[in-house]
């Protein structure tokens, strides 16, 4: 079959970092192609070039036999290249129909919107996706998955020939994903080419025909999905054998550092008791809504417990606020790095020292040189990839942002680390590095406790596993002998060792 789109020798750099180097990619009508790679591998950059949001430094784009130069978003749309961004880019206050036709509303006379026509067309497009929703209502009234369908409808409404989906399932449940896939297969039959960006290998093998793998901005492989297995793709993505997915477990357990006795908070959790020791990693598992984050935030002093006691080195810290806890070596690293963890517009240095300006100050004045020294030191300890310490954190990939967040907290020299979903949404390589760092910290005598919703991570990284269900601690397991099924039994409430 004829190629619909071909990109040859695409290169692009930002802030002196080479984001893409001599990348080739092509697609045929009716093909679903996975674009794989770790965060920061250059997938988004490539897609932004394809849709005219970014201009390449080198290379050419050939679409339906025609060479496109100086592509801008509008032209790309008119040609039929549409993207559905990972973060929904819609206006919640505006109606569904207007969102679908944003930028191209049908007109009656000059400047006057033809609402009737627009609604009719909107309903027509939504019907292609088997969707029956009131197009007059504001978009914000819809659920996330429906909003995403609206985005796809928007992309289709411009006669898309190529549809790019950037992590489309990241905020969808399993059954919602299935509806999405059914729709994608329907579009495939119509001859639409789809680029499917996802971290979830299972989905790639479920729905894609072919794949392209990028690593560090370089094209490292492509082919038919049917010819490979998931391990092959992972190997190409990380560029090394995954002989060991998790670092070695700890060998000994040191003295007790953190003791939590029967803490409760109304409507959040009750009677939570546990200990965390030196040289030990404790994993806290539970389904969403089990009260894990709430309990840990209370231990950290964001909230005070209604009853119970928290002790650090035998000292009662129940009434401490977060500042006092940080000063005594107890820290909590948020699960939401963008909203709660980092100052995205500030540079790497400033982020690293943000939690403790004392150590970079003299006579209450912040010393630039100290900021640079300490910032650089901890960013490097975390093996963060960056072009300059002065670049804003938001220009880093998700995995590297997470490392900066960790670096920030390591800079305060903690003894007890509580991490909430420390590897959420980051790629395999960065994940492994973070796991390794946590294990090293633990081996050096730190106490580490982490929350995770991923069973393999809970089993692979922890020495000991705690499980919560509906605000209560229901189980404690040795990670060496526990199985995924067993942990799920507790988490789903079918098993409880601490009946009370």
């Amino acid at each position, binding site marked *: 079959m004829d190629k619909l789109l071909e990109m040859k020798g695409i290169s692009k750099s930002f802030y002196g970092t080479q984001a893409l180097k001599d990348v080739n990619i092509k697609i045929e009508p009716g093909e679903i192609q996975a674009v794989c790679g770790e965060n920061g591998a250059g997938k988004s950059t490539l897609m932004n070039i394809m849709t005219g949001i970014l201009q390449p430094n080198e290379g050419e784009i050939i679409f339906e036999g025609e060479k496109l130069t100086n592509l801008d978003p509008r032209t790309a749309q008119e040609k039929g290249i549409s993207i559905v961004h990972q973060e929904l880019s*819609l*206006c919640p206050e505006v109606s569904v129909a207007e969102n679908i036709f944003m*930028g191209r509303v049908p007109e009656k006379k000059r*400047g006057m919107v033809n609402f009737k026509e627009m609604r009719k067309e909107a309903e027509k497009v939504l019907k292609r996706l088997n969707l029956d929703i009131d197009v007059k209502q504001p978009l914000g009234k819809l659920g996330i998955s429906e909003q995403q369908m609206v985005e796809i409808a928007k992309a289709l409404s411009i006669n898309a020939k190529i549809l790019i989906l950037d992590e489309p399932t990241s905020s969808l449940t399993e059954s919602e994903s299935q509806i999405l896939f059914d729709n994608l297969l329907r579009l495939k039959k119509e001859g639409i080419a789809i680029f499917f960006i996802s971290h979830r290998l299972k989905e790639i093998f479920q729905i894609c025909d072919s794949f392209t793998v990028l690593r560090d901005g370089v094209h490292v492989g492509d082919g038919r999905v049917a010819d490979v297995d998931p391990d092959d793709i992972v190997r190409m993505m990380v560029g090394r054998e995954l002989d060991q997915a998790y670092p070695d477990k700890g060998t000994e357990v040191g003295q007790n550092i953190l003791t939590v006795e029967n803490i409760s908070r109304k409507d959040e959790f009750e009677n939570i008791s546990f200990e965390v020791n030196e040289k030990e990693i404790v994993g806290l598992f539970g389904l969403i809504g089990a009260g894990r984050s709430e309990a840990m935030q209370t231990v950290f002093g964001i909230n005070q417990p209604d009853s119970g006691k928290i002790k650090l080195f035998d000292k009662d810290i129940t009434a401490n606020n977060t500042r006092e806890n940080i000063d005594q070596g107890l820290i909590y690293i948020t699960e939401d790095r963008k909203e709660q963890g980092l100052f995205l517009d500030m540079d790497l240095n400033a982020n690293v020292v943000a939690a403790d300006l004392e150590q970079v100050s003299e006579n209450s004045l912040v010393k630039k040189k100290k900021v640079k020294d300490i910032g650089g030191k901890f960013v490097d300890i975390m093996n963060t990839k960056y072009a300059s310490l002065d670049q804003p954190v938001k220009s880093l990939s998700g995995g590297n942002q997470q490392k900066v967040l960790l670096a920030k907290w390591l800079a305060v020299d903690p003894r007890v680390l509580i991490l909430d979903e420390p590897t959420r949404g980051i790629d395999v390589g960065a994940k492994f590095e973070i796991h390794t760092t946590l294990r090293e910290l633990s081996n050096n005598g730190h106490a580490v406790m982490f929350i995770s919703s991923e069973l393999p991570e809970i089993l692979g990284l922890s020495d000991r596993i705690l499980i919560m269900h509906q605000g209560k601690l229901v189980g404690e397991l040795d990670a060496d002998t526990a199985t995924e099924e067993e942990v799920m039994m507790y988490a789903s409430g079918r098993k409880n060792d601490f009946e009370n």
Partner: protein
Amino acid sequence: MNIIKKLKDSLGKELGALTGLILLGAIMTFATPYFLTLTNLMNILRQSSLIAIAAAGMTFVIITGGIDLSVGSVLSLSSCLTAGMMVSLGWNVWLAVFLGLIAGGILGIVNGVLITRVPLPPFISTLGMMGVARGLSFVYTDGAPIYGLPESFKYLGAGMIGPIPFPAILMVIIYLISYFLLNKTKVGRYAYALGGNEEAAILSGINTKKYKTIVYALTGLFASISGMILSARLDAATSVAGDGFELDVIAAVVIGGTSLSGGRGKIIGSLIGALIMGVVRNGLNLLLVSSHWQRVILGLIILLAVTVDVVRKQSSEDQDGTLSSFFAGLKS
């Protein structure tokens, strides 16, 4: 039942403001016998029209997520220019009015260009324009009021059609036009879109620069219409006219339920907001409350209106279970 629900839906947030207006009217009626008379009500309409007309333009700007601090100065400069053309140069009244309005529109376009092309934040750009236009007004008049405006011009401020003051009719016409622009045309619909999510609007290929500039031009134009009415009513154009006017205008829009973070608001709300301010001023005057206390009370009303709005938004977000968007709203 269905009709009530429909009415409630279409009025939405404005229902609160409307209730407030009616409540205030009722209170004033009980407080003073002079309030509920035809003459007084018409007087309120005449007084409110100044703020209301400029607020119509400001509503567009605020819906795009912007702000225009220069409306008071633009009002003054355009009215002084028109008065000068009529009195000193002896030009035709309507030509002078026309050129004055064009001047207001151009000042708005300059704001729009600074905001979209430099780009400057709207607050800064219009703060600068506030100083520049006010200064030019002083330079042009040398600080002295321009008196003796033609009779036909004064009709703009003092004229009556039957029992209704001409400015009130003009106000209604402008609100009808604004309603149409905001709800039926691309300018209005894209204003909501780019106020709600500017990134999305740009990615959708909307020429946001063009539509933003149009919106600021509209505000400049409407502010200068208010300027004409004011100078016609006072029979004088002065360089100090409209000092602090921008805050009254913004207050009217905000009382009317338009969100300062952009993306939501209705034109009818701003009219109600302006009328609320008019009723309060008028009622307090009738009750012989000193102008010093009037400022305090108007300030409290702004706080109350926005508090009610925030609380209501909070509780409806809670029902939807999307508290995060509320926090996002607080941050911006």
